[in-house]
């Protein structure tokens, strides 16, 4: 009954959460770089954050037998000042060879603005240049459909990118088809308030199938649930889904996508 939570912001969570996740069967997590809840005032703030993601967080996870991987980027919420964003982005390359860095993420759009799009495209170029996997954040609520379309268009305009190496996250019923038909991987994110529930995630699996689809908690400092993935597993079991189907969504699929980066190794699984 092992699982992977492929999107969770553990720097915002307590050590007790690592313990509870380990008890629920979590063997690996991947942590995308994101917004701190306030705007960092200097690129040095990002430097320290990238050190935390690549040096201290893996040690904290290891105490509970959880493998910790990460993604580096400037969040779209911090992309409205492109000069500042590019300065912070210039720090990323020196971290890309760290042993737990899988790629560039989470990048994408927040309010679907021109500056966000410019910085998103700059991250796509960096990922293409350095052969990195990509994890894409899509906007929430009424902005999601438009943002997902703009994101897919920007990726299509970059011929150096392989869609099989890109996961577009936070899909819901109105964007899952766009993402999967576009040849990308798709992530469903479970939030306790306002967005996708474990029940809807199970519905999406039933509607769109189990290919190239995963579930994550996107747990962070806001209302969120670090045990969302095991809750979705329970929901699928309640309905009578086969153990292989549940394992496919919560373990095999993330392992296949993430395993495209040779650094992603799960000992003993």
């Amino acid at each position: 009954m092992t699982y992977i939570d492929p999107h969770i912001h553990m720097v915002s969570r307590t050590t007790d959460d690592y313990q509870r996740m380990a008890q629920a069967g979590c063997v690996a997590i991947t942590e995308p770089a994101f917004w701190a809840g306030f705007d960092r005032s200097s690129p040095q703030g990002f430097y320290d954050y990238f050190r935390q993601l690549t040096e201290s967080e893996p040690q904290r996870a290891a105490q509970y037998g959880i493998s910790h991987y990460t993604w580096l980027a400037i969040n779209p919420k911090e992309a409205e000042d492109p000069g500042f964003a590019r300065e912070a982005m210039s720090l990323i390359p020196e971290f890309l060879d760290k042993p737990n860095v899988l790629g560039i993420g989470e990048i994408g759009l927040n309010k679907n603005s021109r500056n966000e799009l410019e910085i998103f495209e700059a991250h796509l170029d960096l990922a293409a240049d350095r052969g990195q996997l990509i994890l894409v954040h899509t906007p929430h609520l009424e902005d999601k459909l438009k943002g997902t379309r703009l994101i897919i268009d920007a990726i299509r305009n970059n011929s150096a990118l392989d869609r099989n190496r890109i996961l577009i996250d936070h899909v819901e019923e109105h964007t899952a088809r766009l993402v999967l038909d576009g040849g990308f991987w798709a992530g469903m994110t479970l939030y306790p308030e306002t967005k996708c529930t474990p029940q809807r995630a199970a519905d999406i699996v039933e509607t769109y199938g189990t290919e190239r689809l995963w579930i994550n908690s996107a747990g962070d400092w806001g209302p969120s649930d670090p045990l969302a993935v095991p809750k979705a597993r329970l929901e699928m079991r309640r309905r009578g889904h086969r153990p292989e189907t549940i394992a496919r969504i919560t373990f095999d699929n993330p392992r296949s996508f993430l395993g495209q980066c040779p650094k992603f190794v799960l000992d003993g699984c």
Partner: protein
Amino acid sequence: MTAPESTCPAPRSKVVELYFLEHRAKLIDIASFLDRVDRAPADGPETDFRIEAFHRALAILSDGRAERARRILEALSDHSTEPIDSAAGLKGAFGASPE
């Protein structure tokens, strides 16, 4: 509209058994919310685009066609296609978009 694939492993009676009471409560929450909006003293324009969008979504709920969740999310989405000029000063999303 194509019919949804029958991929839920639980039979219909079990789906109703598992989820009816929970969604009955959610249905009453919606009714109570709309009553509350009506009861609250007016303090601005006659209509709010979010409530208008909500009513469009409610019509989808009862039209008897498939993929209600997808179609409601689309009804609550911004359908413009060009990026906005600036996100500076914009706070969070509204959950609906003016038609």
